[in-house]
């Protein structure tokens, strides 16, 4: 069993404040998280704002170095604080951000967006880069004529396709997706989740999927890690975790998630009717 990514006792400290009259304080955003993801699987990291899920995602994506702890990519220890990331390692891990409106350079044509990772990390020639970018555009369901267009000419869902195409240009093993569907409409979300499933099958991709939406997580994840205030309060296989959440915070999260279940709606409608009848009578 090959682990694409493993983290052990990962922590992240941020220094805040420290003005003229106040002392700087240290906030520990991630407090010793362990995890491992197998090749071809999806780990979902679930949490609310301030839980440290995006901080953890940035560590896993090799953007920020953790304050302490160990990160292994394909078995190899990676410490970007000590040693500059090699192009080879950068190719293995890529990230897709939440906001497709902010993550694309408005002055860069789509073709250039896709070719830039190749320009920086590979010795490919210009025609080769162009071929690969055009092929990738087709893979994510965009048309060849989109190559020379600017990001503002695309919808949110299309932009997120461009962002994922960019992330896939270097044939990564691991894709870190930070809330990739939270800015998308329901119908566009469905298309994008299907695309993620197709790409995972085709390229044997491993996903770390950060989300606050439990219905999306339940649909896409193999394993789930629940993060609360920087602590992994619960983690495990999806079926087990959804069937029988152990930690009080996980239970609270489940209870707060709206359900579209017919029986639940009928029960609510009847409660309301009864309450009204009581109020009038």
């Amino acid at each position: 069993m090959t682990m694409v990514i493993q983290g052990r006792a990962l922590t992240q400290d941020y220094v805040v404040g420290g003005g003229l009259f106040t002392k700087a304080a240290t906030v520990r955003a991630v407090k010793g998280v362990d995890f491992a993801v197998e090749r071809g699987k999806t780990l979902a990291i679930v949490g609310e704002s301030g839980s440290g899920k995006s901080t953890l995602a940035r560590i896993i994506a090799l953007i920020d170095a953790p304050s302490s702890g160990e990160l292994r990519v394909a078995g190899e220890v990676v410490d970007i604080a000590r040693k500059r990331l090699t192009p080879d390692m950068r190719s293995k891990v890529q990230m897709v951000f939440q906001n497709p409106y902010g993550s694309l350079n408005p002055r860069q044509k789509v073709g250039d967006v896709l070719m830039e990772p190749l320009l920086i990390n590979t010795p490919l020639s210009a025609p080769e880069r162009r071929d690969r970018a055009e092929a990738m555009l087709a893979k994510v369901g965009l048309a060849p004529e989109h190559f020379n267009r600017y990001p503002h000419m695309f919808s949110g869902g299309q932009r997120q396709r461009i962002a994922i195409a960019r992330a896939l240009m270097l044939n990564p093993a691991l894709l870190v997706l930070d809330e990739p569907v939270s800015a998308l409409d329901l119908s566009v979300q469905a298309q994008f989740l299907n695309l993620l499933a197709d790409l995972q099958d085709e390229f044997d991709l491993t996903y770390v999927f950060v989300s606050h939406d439990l219905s999306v997580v339940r649909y896409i994840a193999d394993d789930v890690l629940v993060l609360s205030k920087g602590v992994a309060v619960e983690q495990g296989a999806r079926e087990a975790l959804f069937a029988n959440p152990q930690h009080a915070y996980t239970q609270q999260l489940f209870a707060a998630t709206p359900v579209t279940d017919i029986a639940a709606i009928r029960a609510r409608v009847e409660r309301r009717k009864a309450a009204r009848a009581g109020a009038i009578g």
Partner: protein
Amino acid sequence: MVQKTGPLLEIRNLTVRFDTSNGAFTAVDGVDVSVDGREVLAIVGESGSGKSVSMLAVMGLLPDTATVTADAMLYDGRDLLQMSVAERQKLIGREITMIFQEPVASLNPSFTVGFQIEEVLRYNMGLDHRAARNRAVDLFNAVGIPEPETKLDAYPHQLSGGQCQRVMIAMAIASNPRLLIADEPTTALDVTIQKQILDLLMDLQERHGMALILITHDMGVVAETADRVIVQYQGRKMEEADVLSLFEHPQNAYTRALLSALPENATGDRLPTVAEFMAAEARA
């Protein structure tokens, strides 16, 4: 108060057009909306469905480039489109109030939340400074803001998103409105905070006996709150039904497509997308 029969708000054949550089764009196309005095109506749709625009038209908050036409826009039997600006101003912000998606952005960052809510009370209800302060404390208590006296002196950036939305709700119910329009009130909030805010809105709606129009894209929110639902798509009304019928027996193809695109309703490996679903239904 004399109870008039008929709906509290009744809009017939509402159309909203925007003048753009590419010609006229119809954002809302012949939509009927009515809501009863103690009812929770959800208007659900994706972006571009015109769900917000139709309610902004009621509030008179659309820009000058918008042309609003309707056969009737009756509030309590009186036509909002026929009455004078002064008459309309007496209703908007008092009897009909609205809250928005981004609670932090809805508040003025330069003033304390106490100043902002007291301004509403002084302007709309003619209270003096001391009375406004007392009423503000009561309202903060009603919407569940702890330590209201201290929180009144806080600036919006010192409060969380959920607390800012509670402040907005406090302002919106300050005048005891008969109709509250909430435009995606929980979209920017965490799910546990969303539950608290929805519970609060439902509780206030019940206790004050007001009508609530909830604009949302989230079928889960609809399922947890609405009495009746209007589904809108590209400016048109696709379906209108009570909440249980809508989820149990959706009549319109678009409604069925939306429901089947919910991840929790997934049956196979793939989610049917709205376009695929509607194409498949058209073939069948």
